[in-house]
């Protein structure tokens, strides 16, 4: 493009005020509902706490994954928006805090924490060396520590680059990313096993970590897409940002919607085929009573609607469609986490109530407040990144 903007002519702008206001309002309303629910129905609130933790962890670690993926693949198109992922990744810092309500009520959530049950149960006592409270605590702390550590290291280099314009920092981040990827694969797998799969301690599925990963990267990508499209429409990025970038977001969203469906169906098909009671119980639980409608709803919400919503080429470029679909996918991921968590709380059916709603509002508010906090402190565009100019001029 001949009229390409001057990259270094960036002036920092405040985020739109209604964006900030909405974030604080959701945070306060959510917080009130969450605190209230802790007194009204402790157990249900604790289960919702698991949902909150897994959803926020999805956004945080998924954003970190996209930052790392950009460095490792040498992608340039996403460089102008990397800061959005970096700001969203900051929710990793509060993970230990939001894990607390669920952690202190783990006796009500996790069947395997009851020592007298484990003693009489052959399977649980065989799993006891892994599934016990102290090792569980250590693992959770280690995983969150790994994420926070790498988040800190990578974003520190990225921030430093804004002022120094040092290209070696990019090279350093690539090395850090290469170290992080295997750690990420292991940590997210075991994190999902600990907090979601062990809700049903007898049940196991070898693909479960991948299943959670597919939802995680999809949700994080949807959050990034929504914020990028919204802010870019209001002129927060450079003027070169348009269809080619939007198309890349849309195509990735579409791809990961299919990836999720592929993994989810693989998990179901293998368990259905083998027909072993200790495996099928998990799906049977989700097919009893009202849960059947929830399960059918999951297919429609998490796959059918986003699939057809993003299938056509024009819909991957339309900002309106992208904003709608990314919000929809975020909802679908919350729904997915609920579908995994809640049958343990209530068999044969379940109506989401104000407690779950409160936690959902709180999750949105928390993410937005942290985003605002980071956006207030730092540049919205990595102005020192050597790939930035190519990223803005990116053509498919």
């Amino acid at each position, binding site marked *: 493009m001949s009229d390409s903007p001057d990259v270094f002519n960036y002036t920092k702008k405040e985020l739109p005020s209604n964006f900030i206001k909405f974030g604080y309002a959701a945070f306060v309303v959510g917080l009130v509902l969450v605190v209230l629910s802790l007194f009204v129905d402790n157990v249900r609130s604790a289960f919702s706490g698991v949902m909150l933790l897994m959803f926020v962890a999805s956004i945080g670690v998924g954003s970190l994954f996209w930052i790392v993926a950009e460095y490792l693949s040498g992608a340039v198109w996403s460089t102008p928006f990397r800061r959005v992922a970096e700001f969203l990744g900051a929710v990793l810092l509060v993970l230990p805090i939001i894990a607390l309500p669920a952690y202190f009520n783990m006796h009500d959530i996790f069947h395997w924490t009851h020592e007298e049950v484990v003693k009489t149960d052959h399977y649980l006592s065989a799993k006891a060396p892994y599934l016990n409270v102290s090792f569980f605590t250590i693992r959770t702390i280690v995983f969150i520590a790994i994420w926070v550590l790498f988040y800190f290291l990578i974003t520190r280099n990225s921030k430093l680059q804004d002022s120094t314009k040092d290209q070696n920092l990019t090279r350093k981040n690539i090395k850090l990313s290469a170290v992080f990827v295997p750690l990420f694969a292991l940590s997210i797998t075991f994190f999902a096993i600990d907090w979601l799969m062990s809700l049903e301690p007898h049940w196991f599925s070898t693909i479960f970590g991948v299943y959670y990963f597919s939802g995680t990267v999809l949700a994080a990508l949807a959050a990034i897409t929504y914020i990028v499209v919204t802010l870019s429409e209001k002129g927060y990025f450079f003027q070169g940002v348009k269809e*080619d970038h939007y198309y890349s977001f849309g195509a990735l969203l579409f791809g990961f919607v299919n990836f999720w469906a592929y993994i989810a*169906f693989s998990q179901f*098909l293998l368990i259905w085929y083998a027909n072993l009671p200790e495996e099928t119980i998990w799906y049977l639980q989700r097919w009893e009573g009202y849960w059947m409608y929830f399960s059918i709803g999951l297919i429609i919400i998490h796959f059918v609607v986003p699939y057809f919503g993003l299938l056509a080429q024009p819909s991957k470029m339309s900002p309106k469609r992208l904003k709608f679909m990314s919000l929809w996918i975020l909802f679908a991921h919350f729904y997915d986490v609920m579908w995994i968590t809640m049958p343990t709380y209530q068999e044969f059916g379940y109506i989401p109530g104000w407690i779950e709603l409160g936690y959902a509002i709180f999750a949105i508010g928390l993410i937005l407040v942290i985003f605002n906090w980071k956006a207030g402190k730092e540049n919205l565009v990595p102005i020192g990144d050597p790939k930035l100019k190519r990223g803005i001029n990116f053509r498919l």
Partner: protein
Amino acid sequence: MSDKILYSLTGLFDTPDEIIAAAKKVQAEGYTKYDVNTPYPVHGMDSAMKLPMSRLPYVAMVVGLTGMFLALFFMWWTNSVDYPLVIGGKPYFALPAYVPIMFEVTVLSASIATVVTMIAIVFKFPNNSHPLLDTEYMKHVSVDKYGISISAEDPKFNYESVKSLLESLGAKNISPVYFKDEVINFKPNTFEPKFVLSLIGLFIVVSGLTYVTLNKLMYLPPFDWMMEQSKVIAQERSDVFEDGRGMRTPVEGTVARGFLPYKYKDNPDAAGKFLVNPLPATEENLQVGETKFDIYCSPCHGYLAEGDSRLKGQFPNPPSLHSAKVRNWSDGRIYHVITEGQNAMPSYAYQLSREERWAIILYIRALQRSLNAKESDLQ
């Protein structure tokens, strides 16, 4: 040069922006038969060339969906209708198991159809070449240059004006592309010796490999491990037993499930005296009796048991079952005949289960009644 037929005039550009601008200009000048060649799909080219939406996606969709439903129909028909088999304790119509196959067939048929259609359209099937192939122009545009090619078939085509247009756009390497001689002079000759010989060679290689695989390779380890198992196969000799018989006779007095030993062997009178039909004369039992009678009895005795089948006259005449003798026999006596046979009639004990024999007797009684009804039946 002049005896060659001109295909098009081509020009090269260095950047995607230049080629988009060039395509817009050529489009605005009113040319219709031109094409743009780039090393990768340049976005925005469709709108610059004002191309209508490609119709290929429709081919992909129609063929893909057809493939999907054909796969579903095929599996439904074979597994749940024509030859229902229980596989792995799953229902006859096991949709989750079909999904991967439906998916694969959809992808396969859609992609093959898309490629074939595209080749057919671009190369104008059955041609399998294109004048632009194997030219300097094509070498450049498939590596690092962006090219435009304005066809000589275009109604507005004029060598000089097109050349100056390309020059004004800043194109480099403006060069004409001609139809190749061998394409112009191409005469199809299917029975060319080289072609026939290569076909024969291919035939020999493929059949030889097939022969070796099926007749030699399969009998070499490790491919014969499935065949050569250390177990006794039915009818085979075994050295474990003294008498060398692999198949063992059951222990004396063994009764197979669903069978009872027949107590009245060679003793028809006792059978007639002691055996009683255990089946009630329900419609269901009569239905079974009719079916089995029509299959096993009617070829000789006839559908109405009058001994008037198509075998009559070619064979010792089968008796009618409406004779007074048979009518006065007890059910047990008839059962004995079916079980043991009589005169030319063989035993049917192997073809018919006990229940089926009794059901046939019920049906014979009904046939007899229909020809020799009692007064009381009329009421």
